């Protein structure tokens, strides 16, 4: 079976896909990749479905040896990457021959990097998904000695690259009011939007702490609110009024009040903001939020068409002869959405 043997692994490495929708009633949040845009980018670069699983690497990657010949793609937080010692371009697809050694190092910006295999990572599904949901007791971290099996790879195209907008350095998060926003006084809501935050040190796949100077953001009757449903993007205020932005692997219910909900399309920016990154919240109306999200969804659908053959600068190529200079030319015009191969 083709795949990648894990020779060494960083501490926060797991198989992720789009997660498990539909299990809120059983107490399991959808989970899946912390940065689902990175999943879509990898799928575009490999001309395959965005529902396939990839390897998520928090902060640092690992060392892998190819079993059989594979196509790979690298997306998300840019990390140093080499194949048998030769630097690999991030946000691009590459060919890996049997026995070659892939080394992925620390993130240069952002938090979560993704390693995609042609055909996806073909581990067993549980409740419809291959995603580890460690806080929910599903699956395990990927560790040294594991084999990441590749699924059947119907494509051959490699050497595609993608221009990616920076979502790894903080910035503005669009937020809509939600059902508990009215528990917060108007001046607290306004001050929340005017405040400059930094990502705190308490952050994981469940949520990310936001720290700021000055007083916290408390709701009226904060301590006797009935536990209610939580959705990813909810900004929860803990007892001392400190905000946490909840991510896809959050708990399904909670008693702390939520001031609003960050748009799904801005959650990758939350997850990918490194320690100390500057962030702020921009209130938008429901109508504005829906329009922004619809535009983002259309953009994600257009990703495969935006993948272009890598233009390589020969000065950057340490070993020119080792490159497959024509590899990217095989079917650069393929559009997986058009020919139905993305389903």
């Amino acid at each position, binding site marked *: 079976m083709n795949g990648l043997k894990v020779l060494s692994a960083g501490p926060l490495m797991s198989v992720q896909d789009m997660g498990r929708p539909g299990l809120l009633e059983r107490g399991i949040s959808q989970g899946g990749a912390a940065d689902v845009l990175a999943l879509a980018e990898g799928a575009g670069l490999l001309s395959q479905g965005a529902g396939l699983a990839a390897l998520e690497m928090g902060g640092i990657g690992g060392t892998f040896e190819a079993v059989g010949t594979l196509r790979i793609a690298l997306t998300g937080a840019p990390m140093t990457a080499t194949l048998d010692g030769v630097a690999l371009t991030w946000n691009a697809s590459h060919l890996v021959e049997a026995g070659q050694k892939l080394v992925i190092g620390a993130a240069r910006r952002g938090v979560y990097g993704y390693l995609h295999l042609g055909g996806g990572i073909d581990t067993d599904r549980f409740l419809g998904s291959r995603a580890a949901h460690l806080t929910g007791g599903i699956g395990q971290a990927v560790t040294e000695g594991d084999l990441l099996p590749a699924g059947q790879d119907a494509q051959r195209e490699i050497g595609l690259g993608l221009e990616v907008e920076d979502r790894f350095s903080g910035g503005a998060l669009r937020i809509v009011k939600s*059902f508990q926003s009215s528990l917060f006084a108007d001046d607290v809501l306004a001050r929340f939007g005017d405040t400059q935050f930094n990502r705190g040190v308490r952050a994981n796949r469940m949520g990310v702490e936001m720290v700021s100077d000055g007083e916290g953001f408390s709701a009226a009757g904060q301590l006797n609110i009935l536990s209610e*449903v939580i959705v990813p993007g909810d900004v929860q205020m803990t007892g001392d009024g400190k905000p946490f932005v909840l991510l896809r692997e959050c708990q399904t219910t909670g008693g702390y009040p939520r001031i609003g909900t960050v*748009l799904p399309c801005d959650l990758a920016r939350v997850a990918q903001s490194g320690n100390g990154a500057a962030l702020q919240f921009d209130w938008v109306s429901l109508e504005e939020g829906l329009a922004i999200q619809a535009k983002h969804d259309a953009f994600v659908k257009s990703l495969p068409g935006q993948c272009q053959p890598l233009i390589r600068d020969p000065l950057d190529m340490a070993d020119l002869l080792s490159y497959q200079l024509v590899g990217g030319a095989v079917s650069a015009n393929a559009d997986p959405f058009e020919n139905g191969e993305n389903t």
Partner: protein
Amino acid sequence: MGVQESSNFPVIRTVGLQGLLVTFADKLSEPSNRAALAFQGALEQGLMTGVIETSTSLASVFVRFDPSELSHDVLREQLQGLLADRDWYAAPLPEGRRFWRVPTVYGTDLAPQLAEAADAAGMTEAQAIDSLGSARVRVLTIGFAASQPYLGTLGEEWDLPRQTELTPMVPQGALVQAIRQFVLFTAPAPTGWRHVGQTGMRLFRPEMEDPFALRAGDELIFEPVARADFLRLREDDPLNGGATVSEIAS
């Protein structure tokens, strides 16, 4: 006039971009919890295109949907129509519910906050065990973690506030108490509720065909057993710790 009859409820509000929440009361009550369970049951009978999932919380029903397929206005209108269809507060409980008898150690080193909770409720430890160990409670909702139930409703004397400080960690199967409810823990976790009892229930069993032990509406009694008996039951039955289950006739 009860809160559930207040003119403010039921109310429909947005949850982020992609959800609506139908809330039957802002306090936990039997009628509002039954209304939530019954309303969700009716919704599931005829799911509209674009609805991704529904779930209940203590007194609310959450509907997650895809606004590109189903607009907020259309869904809201349909939910309003269904709300007006009948008196949801008078709805019966769902069918197919089960009754669990769960052997439980109260107090000892296995559940070290019984004494503190009994004191706060104005009882001796023996009285507290009698009271908690004879209460037949219902799964009001599943939430926070996989298959983890909020159970109630206990008597007024158990309307104890959450602790100000978190208990750093309670084990799997811990029975914790606050605000007239129990929570039975799926997995080790920190909690602001008091650890009054310990059971051998494993609520989430990923290796089994049906991995979820409990459903909303199921009923349970946490029957007191001696520490030594509990340890033997847990060893003999690592899945349920000696708990037995039967169908509730509807």
